């Protein structure tokens, strides 16, 4: 009889990469649901487009690289990238935005760097930044929450808008963004930025209809929904607490300091926490293991860095939201962070870096 020879350990936790990726994707569901509720189900169409594009691009490149296609598609990493990008871009953005962005994320950012595990940047965020810089108008055309829209949406409207840039009734996106009073509405972060630039104070700006007591209308609930999904991920031990906590704490501290110093010019920490993509970034994007720091201490640094960069870029940068830029900048710093945050090995006294210089 022949016996199987194997190297120890012979036991495994049975937590596999594909399961991890799938769980993270599933944890997006509350957030997506909230987005559907406030901004229409166009986001589902975007997700569909993104996933199809991601799989196709991944398969194509794997084929070109002469790698096994199916096992790698099954690791669900492309699926997750596609979903994250799709929920991050405006729901009514034209189809080529998401198709081009996803293809860029998979082919350029991920596969050309060596595939899963080898990319320097978070693929979804790198694609987002590429799109934002290349197509700023399309990438900032968020519709106001349905509750504030003048024209009620029909079932087919998302499809018409995504593929033709006009609603089925023939309204353009700009028309769709106009409220009952004929005012063009932007996202809360955008509105605030515009108002501050126009010389208004924050309390004055917060009088706008896109705001309510918890920040931007709709956006606060979307963020809370992503927070819920994130907490579930923590409970499932799919992600570790360090990066999300450090990110949220970093953002809170930075925004609190500014807010306490000049409340007229700065939004409250709560507003920052519940606006834009904060929660999505904290639990779903910054926690992407491939492009994040790997040491326990390094993850705290990495998370805090993103949190502070989000505030700084939101407050002083040219674009309304800052998550993608902050994450990419932090990605760049990862090798440095990892090198200087190596843990002390058992039985070793001196910190490993001390002897290096």
């Amino acid at each position: 009889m022949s016996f199987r020879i194997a190297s120890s350990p012979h036991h495994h936790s049975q937590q596999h990469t594909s399961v991890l990726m799938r769980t993270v994707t599933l944890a997006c569901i509350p957030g997506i649901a909230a987005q559907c509720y406030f901004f229409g189900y166009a986001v589902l169409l975007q997700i569909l487009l993104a996933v199809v594009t991601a799989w196709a691009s991944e398969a194509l490149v794997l084929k070109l690289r002469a790698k096994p296609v199916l096992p790698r598609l099954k690791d669900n990493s492309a699926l997750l990238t596609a979903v994250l990008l799709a929920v991050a871009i405006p729901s009514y953005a034209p189809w080529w935005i998401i198709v081009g962005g996803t293809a860029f994320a998979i082919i350029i950012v991920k596969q050309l760097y060596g595939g899963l595990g080898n990319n320097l940047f978070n693929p979804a965020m790198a694609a987002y930044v590429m799109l934002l810089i290349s197509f700023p108008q399309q990438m900032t055309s968020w519709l106001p929450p349905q509750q504030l829209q003048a024209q009620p949406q029909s079932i087919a409207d998302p499809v018409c808008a995504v593929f033709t840039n006009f609603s089925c009734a023939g309204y353009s996106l700009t028309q769709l963004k106009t409220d009952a009073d004929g005012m063009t509405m932007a996202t809360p972060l955008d509105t605030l930025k515009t108002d501050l630039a126009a010389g208004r104070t924050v309390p004055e700006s917060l009088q706008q209809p896109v705001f309510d007591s918890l920040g931007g209308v709709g956006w606060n609930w979307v963020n809370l929904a992503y927070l819920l999904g994130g907490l579930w991920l923590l409970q499932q031990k799919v992600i570790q607490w360090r990066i999300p906590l450090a990110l949220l704490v970093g953002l809170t501290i930075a925004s609190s300091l500014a807010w306490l110093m000049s409340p007229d010019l700065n939004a409250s920490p709560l507003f920052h926490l519940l606006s834009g993509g904060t929660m999505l970034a904290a639990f779903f994007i910054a926690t992407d293991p491939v492009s994040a720091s790997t040491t326990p201490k390094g993850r705290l640094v990495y998370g805090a860095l993103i949190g502070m960069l989000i505030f700084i870029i939101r407050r002083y940068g040219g674009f309304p939201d800052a998550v993608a830029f902050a994450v990419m900048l932090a990605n760049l710093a990862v090798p440095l962070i990892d090198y200087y945050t190596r843990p002390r090995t058992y039985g070793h006294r001196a910190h490993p870096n001390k002897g290096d210089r």
Partner: protein
Amino acid sequence: VQSLFQQIKAGQLWDFHGGIHPPARKQQTQQKPIGRMSLPDRLYVPLRQHIGVAGTVLVQPGDRVLKGQPLTYASNAMAVPVHAPTSGSVLAIEAHPSAHPSALPEPCVVIAPDGLEQWRERFPLDLESAQRPELLERIQQAGIAGMGGAGFPTHIKSAATTGVDYLIINAVECEPYITADAVLMQEYATTIVKGIDILCQLLNPTAVLIGIEDDKPDAITAMQAATSQRDSYLVRVVPAKYPSGGEKQLIQLLTSKEVPAGRRPLDIGIVMQNVGTAFAIAQAVLDDIPLISRIVTVVGQTLSQPQNIHALIGTPVGTLLDHCGFAPEINQRVIMGGPMMGFTLPSLQVPLVKTSNCILAPTQAELPVAGAELDCIRCGACAEVCPATLLPQQLLWYSKAKDQDKLKEYNLADCIECGACAYVCPSEIPLVHYYRVAKAEIREQSREELKAEQAKARFEARNERLEREKQQRNARNQALAAQRQQQMAEQQKQREVAAAQARIQASHVESPAETLSREQIIAAREQKKAEARAYQQAKSAAEATNKTAIVNETATSSAGEPATVNETASSNRSDAVAAAIARAKAKKAQQQDGAATETADQAELQPASLASEAEADSAAAADPRAAAVAAAIARAKAKKAQQQDGAAAETDSQAELKPASLATEAEADSAAAVDPRAAAVAAAIARAKAKKAQQQDGATAETDSQAELKPATLATEAEADSAAAVDPRAAAVAAAIARAKAKKAQQQDGATAETDSQAELKPATLAVESNAEIAADPKAAAIAAAIARAKAKKAQQATEPKDPA
């Protein structure tokens, strides 16, 4: 602030970094009593079952052995013996698959049990009166080595005399499935405590900490009950977490201390012993039962009766499994040890050894075979669970890159190979396997480096020695040359003084006649001129000798001859011509020498050849024709020898050979034409003998002897040459044969690596001596030659043992 001891006493526990919680699966065996099994057909007792060296075998195939009888003898401190697990006969001592991941065969004593279980005589020790060395000796002689897995000889670990604060008894048993220690504590708690008492007697610790995981409630109860009378024995219940049973982890758990990297627990005042070891010590000391059996957990879903078995060391794994109702799957895995750190066995013939605590035969569903390895997604789960606080994914990266510097920087050596990282890795990367390979490569490389260093040191030492010898040779030769020069100068002075005295005498005689006659003045001038010529010639000859960088003793002595010869024959014209030719040749030879690689040794050749030539020339005075022929032959040979020399790599022996041979030749030439017939006969005999000597020599590996062969051959040649004067034809043939032989011998020499130069001196001298005798009495020459040869042979034998090679 409480002291550490107070904190420990108060029951405080600490934590170590990381760790995992794999399903323990201990219930299947923990509640069952310890099983016993009938004697197996064969027992395979490996000679070495511990870290260290095997003992010396004491038994032979065919011997009958009694239960507990030592099979090996511990011949050094790191050795512990093995014992016959039962009575029976030794069938063989042969290689058998070992309890090692490789299962490479290693020597085992194969015993066929006779079923009588007949014990050897036993001598239990009385703990009250037993002395420390006696206890340690008993622990060693009972063959006890750490039973937790590492197998470190227990008597060494127990020999610490001072500075032991804590004795930690490791009863954690954190690996899934294994319950051998748990059931041991359940059934033998009192014996274990007696073993701990003995360890305390040896180590004298402040406190004894007994660490047990909280998933062994029965064992905890049993141990608490057994230690209730002893205040310093503290049973510490640690939360179940893998790998809390690791030595370093348990120390951290119980005392908050860390063992510094590269040090031992004893350095921080801690000694750790496995609970099974404590049991074995009690048995060895109190009952004189050596370590011949142990409790092993035989478990897995392919077994119908998983259980703990008290099994004899040497029982084949297959027998144990069959006893528990083994129903293997296709491609069954049989693991010796636990699922985390155990190793798979390629054969069920592998015997149970002192460190085997578990035999695991799981089904595929129970412990799924690892899937395909995927790319690392840098999730960092491995770093979260690593008990040594390493960064496993960085280590993986550098292991793959074979970057040994970085591996060292990231402390690969501190990896305890617990497997926690690989257990949690979502990409199913066999991390531990990568680390093992990397560690092996590092070990291999450091071994190679050490080897290279040693070889370099050896090479340098050899070069230094050769250089030293060469310089010593040079110094000696120079000293001799200087001595000779001085002698010559003194002689010259004496002659001048004599001449001056003669002149004074002459002037005294002629003093009455005031004026000297013209003839007298001319004569005086002529005499002065002649003296000056003679002096110049002597000087040039001396210069020729001096110019050659290093001059051997023999060579120098023969080099001195031309001067004398020339001096004495200064009136002879042909002599002057010959001397001139000799000088020219010496010059030429010197130039050729300059191009040669080892000039020093070759240089010795020239004076000799010149000497012979000169001698031949002197002989020419007697018989100009024959001498001319002989001289020509000598020249030709000298030339040939030179060329051959130039090609030879290490020619010490060859170079020195020639002076002797050629000198001999010349002398023989001069002695020629006395008794041609007898000479021819003698030459023939000499040739035959030389041949014989050659063959004998050829068989010997030592080159010195080969080198010494030549003098004989060449002596023969010389004799043949002497025959040439009488019978030119026969002589020519004989000479040709002799030359051919000499050539052959030379080639053999050329191939030999190193020859001692001094060894050849003696035979050469002997040969010369014999030839001189030939010159005196041709008839006795043959006898003399024979004596010379005998002497040469004897000299050979004498020099052989001195051979430095």
